[in-house]
């Protein structure tokens, strides 16, 4: 601050990770690790200086502060900034830090998952399972006098299965679960249930037919399909893209960007959810934000820097993967509010179309709005009923156009099982998504078959 900066912040992080991996019915490895470090950020106007180090020696910290302050050119006064601890909410209570749970209990989970997946069907040929948890402690102090701390545990089990059908056909199934939960979570959501779902997907898609390419009516199963929102609108509402004018949603506040049936919420306060945060990585409490209400764009997702430059307030969306990165506006748990259509009616009304049951992932270009959505388990819909499984389907669209084509929203809201990872600028973060059953008209479906 001796150089005329207007904001400075110190971010300290200590993260311990445990990972256990199973392949070929054996524990392949168990590992634990510790990464700790500090990031010093200095802001002068719109300029940011950042220095990070995994060295906690005082000399290294002073060097980091000097480096970060290089962006401030003016003269200021060097002085101490008293900080006061800010109380933080509690959206997750983890009885025992996951780092303190014995590794043997974690390997037991994936061994059980392996057995269950193999027992599900004789066509299950390979099972790869992993369990990863983190206990992440963060502390943020800044020159506005705020000091806040949080411990963010997360636990995640994932199972990847290959089923072998006739003529060497191989189909994969993938499922996972988790959240900011105590280890006892796995007494309720058993590794068997996770493994069986992965195995079910792989077996169900054996014998799948080629996907017909071209526009179709699609029905999305509830839950994990919330990736659609994450890709089609979520990223485009992040304030850095809005401020820079690189998102097609820039300048559209108050405008109709989706059908009346669409209300999109990003909520960092959902109890024990994977994307929840007591505080973001700038020390701002997580919030529930209505982004789109009945089709009208209501709000963007702000971190502190973009909020300040845009005369707004932070929505508690400033997140970073670790002290090695600058915070960026990011999503937490993003979901579509339920409507009043019964899910069975939504399906019954479709004469011909595609039912999308499970999803691989997605990606978006926030400038032209093009998004894709990879469907790992899909079925033909014929006269309102599910028909044969379809392989290799992908949905593509332009965010606002796809949202305008949402013609039915089910009354069956469902969060995803807790396995989402979002990547932006190379930074990976745990996120949640959620969606009731939804029908979208006239979606371009990618496939190999013409006509």
């Amino acid at each position, binding site marked *: 601050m001796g150089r005329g900066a207007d904001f400075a912040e110190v971010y300290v992080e200590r993260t311990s*990770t445990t990972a256990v991996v199973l*392949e*070929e019915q054996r*524990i392949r*490895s*168990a*590992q*634990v*690790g*510790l*990464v700790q*470090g500090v990031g010093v950020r200095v802001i002068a106007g*719109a*300029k940011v*200086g*950042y*220095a*990070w*180090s*995994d060295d906690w020696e005082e000399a290294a910290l002073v060097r980091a502060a000097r480096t*970060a302050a*290089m*962006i401030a050119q003016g003269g200021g006064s060097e002085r101490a900034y008293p900080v006061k601890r800010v109380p933080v909410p509690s959206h997750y209570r983890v009885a025992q830090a996951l780092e303190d749970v014995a590794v043997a209990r974690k390997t037991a989970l994936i061994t059980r998952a392996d057995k269950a997946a193999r027992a599900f069907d004789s066509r299950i*040929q*390979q099972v790869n399972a992993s369990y990863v948890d983190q206990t992440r402690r963060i502390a943020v102090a800044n020159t506005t006098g705020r000091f806040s701390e949080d411990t963010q545990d997360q636990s995640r089990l994932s199972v990847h299965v*290959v089923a*072998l059908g006739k003529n060497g*056909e*191989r189909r*994969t199934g993938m499922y996972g679960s988790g959240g900011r939960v105590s280890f006892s979570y796995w007494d309720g959501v058993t590794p068997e249930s996770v493994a069986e779902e992965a195995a079910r997907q792989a077996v169900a898609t054996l014998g799948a037919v080629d996907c017909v*390419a*071209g*526009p179709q009516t699609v029905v999305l199963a509830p839950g994990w399909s919330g990736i659609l929102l994450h890709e089609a609108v979520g990223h485009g509402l992040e304030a850095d893209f809005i401020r*820079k*004018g*690189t*998102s097609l949603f820039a300048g559209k506040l108050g405008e109709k960007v989706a059908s009346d049936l669409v209300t999109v919420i990003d909520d960092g306060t959902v109890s024990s959810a994977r994307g929840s945060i007591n505080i973001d990585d700038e020390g701002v409490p997580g919030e529930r934000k209505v982004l789109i209400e009945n089709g009208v764009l209501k709000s963007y997702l702000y971190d502190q820097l973009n909020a300040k430059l845009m005369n707004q307030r932070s929505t508690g969306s400033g997140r970073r993967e670790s002290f*090695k990165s*600058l915070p960026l506006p990011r999503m937490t748990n993003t979901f579509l509010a339920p409507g009043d259509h019964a899910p069975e009616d939504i399906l019954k009304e479709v004469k011909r179309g595609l039912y999308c049951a499970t999803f*691989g*992932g997605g*990606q*978006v270009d926030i*400038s*032209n709005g*093009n*998004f*894709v959505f990879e469907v790992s388990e899909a079925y033909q819909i014929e006269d309102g009923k599910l028909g044969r499984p379809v392989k*290799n*389907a*992908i949905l*593509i*669209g*332009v965010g606002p156009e796809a949202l305008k084509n949402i013609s039915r929203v089910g009354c069956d809201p469902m969060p995803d099982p807790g396995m989402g990872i979002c990547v932006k600028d190379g930074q990976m973060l745990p996120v949640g998504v959620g969606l009731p059953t939804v029908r979208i008209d006239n979606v*371009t479906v*990618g*496939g*190999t*078959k*013409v006509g």
Partner: protein
Amino acid sequence: MNYEQLAKKIVQRAVKKGAKQAEAYLEVGRTSSVRVREGQIEDLTEATSKGVGVRVIVKDRLGFAYTSDFTTAGLERVVDLAVQLAEAAAPSKLNGLPGAKDLGKRGDTGALFDPKVANLPGDWKINAALEAERAGRAQDSRVATFDSVSAGDFVAEVYLASSEGASGGYSGTYVYLVAVPVASQDGQLQTGYWLDYKRFLDDLESPESIGREATKRAVRMLGAKPVKTQQVPVVFDPLVAASFVGNLSQAANGNAVYQQSSVLAPHVGKRLAGKHVTLVDDGLLPRGLATAPFDGEGVPTRRTPILDGGVLSGFLYDAFTARKAKARTTGNASRGYSALPGIGTTNLYLEKGTKTPEELIREVPQGLYVTALLGHGADPVSGDMSCGANGLWIENGELTHPVQEVTVAGHLLQMLKDVDAVGSDLQFRGGSVGAPTVRFRQLTVSGA
């Protein structure tokens, strides 16, 4: 600090603590980067980092722990943790570090370190980024803004020691420049990007050229719209072809092959593509971004052809998988300090052909020239591929209007068969995977 000595000390401590075999993999680095926007600095980042991963074998049991805490207590703790984890693990005869037979003689990497990059002044990066932005803006008035223009460098050191006789270290430099303009017309925004990433400063494309090319790529997409669903010849530009090649290499991963989870597994020794298709992983490629004397467990790197004149000739292995599959390691153990070695590629590339990209396009009566893909690409297990695509429509051998909101789909094995021409423009654009322009006889394009 002498890190090579430190790695050896860690190994000695592990052996003293009861490890039959032990390995320390240490990384030390520093990085500096700048982003600019509208002629101003947006942010400056400087960092130093280090960490060590300790792998031990106790009675055929594997333990692994890592830390970034280099205090004496921190280093003692990481060794103890690794040994404790091993004691609690299940035994497997397959566990073990590479021995003398695999460690062998190292090949010649040539220079990996450029003092010009290591001593690059902060001003150079700021000026280069500003120059790229200026040139990009001057190239076309339809550039509305920039998402970012950034420049940066890394200096990375790796040290390794093991109880089986592996030891060594190397330092490398990296420098990069990226421009991401956004062009606007009639309410449509289109982004483009262009970048270069090299070990040596003199190899780096000029800031002016990066700015101009990025703008050209953004502007030419303005007015993009879907085309009708149809099966046509498809041409991948070198960036898109590189992502296809990267995808293909996932199916050449020795572990996926061993698990019968690769579409390539049953085809070893068979012809999968024409004679003009040669795909190579080369850990000793001169000036390559991933070039190194040894892999993540001390095994010398080498050149491994995956497709040799169209014939599937080999897969990629680390020591563990090789032991399991009764193969030899190919020096493809890839890792950072915070992970156990796993199979990865080094410098992976599709060898260039003889025709220019213009000739490849000129021979297409009607088709799609793809300049960006959205999605994960092909599934290495089933071989099915379906991706979102952006690009330009080819009509009578000429690039015409821009195309978006379409997908391209096919199957890896059929796509390999359908590679009917490979361009002369091989490039490593922003990474260690390289490819020239590639043309497929036919893919399904799905659109309106």
